C-alpha cells in the first residue's frame, strides 16, 4: 500500500479523493474519512498555516507507513492545506480504505492524532484583526499517546 500525501494551498474534494482511493480495489469494504475545518463562532475569522517543507512530507510518510504496519489497509490519502484559510474552509483530509471498518476507523483516528502532534505545521489565528500563534494542546498529546503500546 502506498500513501498519497499532498501539502497544498488548494482546496480538495472528498469524493474525488475517495474515488481515487477505491478505484480498482475490489477488496475495499470500508472507507473512513476525516475532514478538519476552520471553526468559527468565537471571533475567529481565519487561520494561516505555515509548514516545514520537506520535513512535513517526510514525517507524514513515516506516520502513514506506521499505520500500514499496524492495520491491514488498501489505501491512505492525506491532504493538508497551507496558507490563509477562512472560517468554514477545509484544512485537512485523512481518508483510509480497508477491507473492514474497524481498521479503517482506527487507522484514520491514529493518523489524525499523529498529524496533530508530529507533522511540522503551525497555525496563526486572526481574531479582531490581531494575529496570534496557536498553542499546542495537551489533549492532542494525550490523544497521540494512547496509540503507544508497551
Amino acid at each position: 500500500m502506498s500513501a498519497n500525501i499532498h501539502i497544498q494551498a488548494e482546496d480538495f474534494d472528498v469524493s474525488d479523493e475517495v474515488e481515487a482511493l477505491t478505484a480498482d480495489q475490489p477488496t475495499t469494504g470500508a472507507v473512513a474519512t476525516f475532514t478538519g475545518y476552520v471553526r468559527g463562532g468565537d471571533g475567529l475569522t481565519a487561520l494561516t498555516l505555515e509548514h516545514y517543507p520537506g520535513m512535513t512530507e517526510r514525517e507524514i510518510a513515516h506516520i502513514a507507513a506506521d499505520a500500514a504496519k499496524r492495520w491491514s489497509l488498501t489505501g491512505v490519502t492525506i491532504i493538508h492545506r497551507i496558507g490563509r484559510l477562512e472560517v468554514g474552509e477545509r484544512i485537512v483530509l485523512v481518508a483510509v480504505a480497508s477491507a473492514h471498518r474497524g481498521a479503517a476507523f482506527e487507522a484514520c483516528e491514529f493518523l489524525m492524532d499523529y498529524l496533530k502532534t508530529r507533522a511540522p505545521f503551525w497555525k496563526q489565528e486572526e481574531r479582531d484583526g490581531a494575529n496570534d500563534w496557536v498553542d499546542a494542546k495537551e489533549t492532542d498529546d494525550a490523544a497521540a499517546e494512547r496509540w503507544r503500546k508497551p
Partner: protein
Amino acid sequence: MNVLYFAWVRQKVGRSEETIEHTPELRTVSDLAALLRARGGGYAGAFTDMSRLRAAVNQVHVALDAPLSSGDEVAFFPPVTGG
C-alpha cells in the same frame, strides 16, 4: 550548517534561515541554542525559555541534547499545531 526558524521563532529572530559554521564547541542542539541566545535581541527572546521550543536535525524531531555535525540542517520551532 543550515539553520531554519518557523512560526514565532522565525518572527522573533527576524529571518527564516541562516548559515552557521559548525565548530567543535557546537556539540549539541542545546549548544547551538545557547550561541543564538547570546546574540541578544530577538534571538534572546526566542531562545530563553527552551521548554517552549522543539528542534529537528536533518528533518527528524530530536531532543535538545542531539549531536550536531557539519552539514546538518537544524530547525527550531514551537510545538506543532497542524491538523
